[in-house]
């Protein structure tokens, strides 16, 4: 890759310490966002997408905590850990303070567009007032200047008659209009990165289309990078440059968007693609993914997808794969976390298929005992020693 990316996330781990145990919501994910790029973060509900994106702003709420990994933004350390003299993990000195994060990063450098436009605006203040306050706060403008900017931004995101609508309350706006206001708010301080957390999920498809076109247009104009969090692969295909697919707190596949759709390397992504209607394929019936995603509090052994995976073999229960480069597309790495690829070399081809692999729940799959899994074996040692690329 050419230069330092805008945002680099390495091995980010965010956990929730609950009374019933530790929920490993985000379990060592790595990705990067370059300037002017729209990067998708895709996964089922509960895969850890939102927690991952909120971790970027250090906005994980109690009892959640970022416990490991490194987030670097424009050369500054948002999250970083080191080993202290007593061997304890501690925060690195160059990590930005909470105050710096709040005043410099949030809003100014990294903005967020939330999922539900109906609830993202305060009902007791006018739309314009909220937008103006936000601009005043982050850009240090006077009230009059901020108002001018606010009205310009409203016009920019395609709100007709912005002077008049400036004075109106959120309940006088439709869902699509409110999402436009939120986009205006996110863009108002000209951040370098916008985290869009399922911004179109609450909208109907026509409005969704309009919003995506708007984002595309504005992205071209301002050159802002986006992290687009969604569960909709259709939206991903429409808008993203590169895609990360998450499953149970891990990134299982990472590739440029065309590569992901036309040369899928992970069975989970395959299953996702088979479960949605696609314009380039005609099928009689869509295939749903069997079962439900297990709890992140007690993830399955080995590959976390193996209880639901149609390609699962005995080895999948033992070996936990990290995402490895399995192919290249125009110089971009295509990473996948599936041992069926040759780079892993853990004996997938020789391993017997799991009995009734796909469709059985995790408990049942756990009952299928393999002689190898009892005795310590080289394969599992190897998996333990495996690091990230």
């Amino acid at each position, binding site marked *: 890759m050419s230069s330092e990316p805008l945002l680099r996330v390495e091995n980010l781990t965010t956990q929730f310490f609950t009374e019933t145990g530790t929920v490993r919501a985000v379990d060592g994910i790595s990705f990067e966002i370059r300037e002017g790029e729209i990067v998708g973060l895709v996964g089922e509900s509960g895969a850890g997408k939102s927690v991952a994106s909120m971790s970027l702003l250090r*906005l994980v709420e109690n009892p959640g905590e970022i416990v490991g990994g490194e987030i670097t933004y424009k050369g500054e350390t948002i999250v970083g850990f080191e080993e202290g003299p007593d061997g304890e993990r501690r925060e690195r000195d160059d990590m930005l303070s909470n105050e710096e994060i709040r005043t410099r990063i949030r809003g100014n450098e990294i903005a967020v567009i*939330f999922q539900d436009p109906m*609830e*993202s605006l*305060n009902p007791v203040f006018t739309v314009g007032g909220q937008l103006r306050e*936000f601009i005043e*706060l982050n850009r240090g403008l006077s009230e009059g200047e901020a108002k001018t900017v606010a009205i310009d931004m409203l016009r920019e995101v395609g709100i007709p008659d912005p002077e008049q609508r400036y004075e109106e309350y959120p309940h006088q706006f439709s869902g699509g209009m409110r999402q436009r206001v939120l986009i205006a708010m996110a863009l108002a301080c000209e951040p370098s990165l916008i985290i869009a957390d399922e911004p179109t999920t609450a909208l109907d498809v026509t*409005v969704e289309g*309009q919003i995506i*076109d708007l984002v595309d247009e504005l992205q071209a104009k301002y050159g802002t990078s986006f992290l687009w969090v969604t569960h909709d692969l259709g939206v991903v295909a429409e808008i993203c440059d590169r895609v990360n697919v998450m499953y149970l707190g891990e990134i299982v596949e990472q590739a440029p968007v065309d590569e992901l759709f036309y040369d899928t390397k992970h069975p989970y992504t395959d299953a996702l693609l088979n479960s949605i209607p696609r314009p380039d394929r005609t099928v009689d019936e869509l295939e749903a993914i069997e079962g439900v995603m297990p709890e992140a509090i007690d993830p399955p052994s080995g590959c976390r997808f193996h209880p639901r995976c149609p390609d699962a073999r005995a080895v999948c229960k033992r070996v936990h794969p990290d995402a490895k480069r399995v192919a290249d597309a125009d110089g971009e790495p295509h990473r996948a976390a599936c041992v069926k690829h040759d780079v892993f070399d853990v004996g997938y081809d020789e391993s017997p298929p799991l009995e009734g692999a796909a469709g059985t729940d995790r408990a049942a799959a756990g009952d299928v005992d393999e002689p190898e899994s009892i005795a310590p074996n080289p394969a599992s040692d190897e998996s333990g020693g495996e690091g990230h690329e």
Partner: protein
Amino acid sequence: MAVSESQYESGREPASEDEESVEARVGWRYTVARIKRDTTARWGLYIVTVVLFVAVYAVVDSNLSRLTFGVASDYTFAQLLPIFDHPTHIPPPGEGTQHMPPYFPLAEQSWNPLPAGGTIEHPLGTDHTGRDYFTRIVYGTQVSVFVGLVSTFIGLTGGTIIGAVAGYYGGRVDDILMRLVETVYAIPPLILIIVFTVFVGGANIWYAVLGVGIAFIPVFARIIRSRVLSIREMDYIEAARAAGVKDRNIIMRHVVPNSFAPVLVYATLQIGVTILIVAGLSFLGYGAQPPTPDWGQMLNISHGYMHSNVWLSIWPGIAIMITIMGFNLFGDGLQDALDPRIED
């Protein structure tokens, strides 16, 4: 998957009839309109307005306050009214020769039979020292309203801050604050206030007001907290945090305004309750001190003269009753008016 043409929505979607009427059911102007339509609320509003007017009048009119504090029986109600031809100079208390000692033993009562009232000079008669009872009742309005408003304001402010902070931060902050608040809540208010006034320096209306305010912090804190717990999960709070807004500003600008409606209603009802409690305190001798005319304190004094003139006990009671009824009716009406789910 997006539609090919980027056709923006038209500016103003015609909201459906239903939606509009629900949306229209919030807002200040609508609240006032609903109160006007509701008969009981309207009467509450009338009573509260009159009471407030009388209270303000008692502050502005210096003649009234002289009459109230003056002790001679010939300072009469009629002197207040310009239609009667009276010497306009009213000597302040302490001047002149005719006034009576501020206190005289019960045994001497027969010396000054308490006028029963019904005259233009003393519509409600005079008290045991010969002061016009009507003016004292009127002046008492000021004390009661002041007491009700100030102590409710103290409770409301303290409760809002504590409740909002506890609810917003949660966790240990919440635990500590709410356990403290519950400790106060566990003590019967009257006992708490009496102990408080004695502890801080004795019977004084200011201490009583402060004590009542503190005693009612827990109630407000609990109401606010329960609202904040749901408000803080709203996306706009998260959005404000993601935009780098300070916690203090989030609480003041986003959390409190959205949690305030139920507390406002409760505060209106609470004004009546505090008036009653302070009247009780004054009756017990821990509130307003003579010669300040307070209804509770007037009740306290007058009960020694019940055989001479039972009306001296009845008038302050009626005044308290009307005032509290006004605030309660108004509070109930406000509650209905602020709740968009209740149809007219």
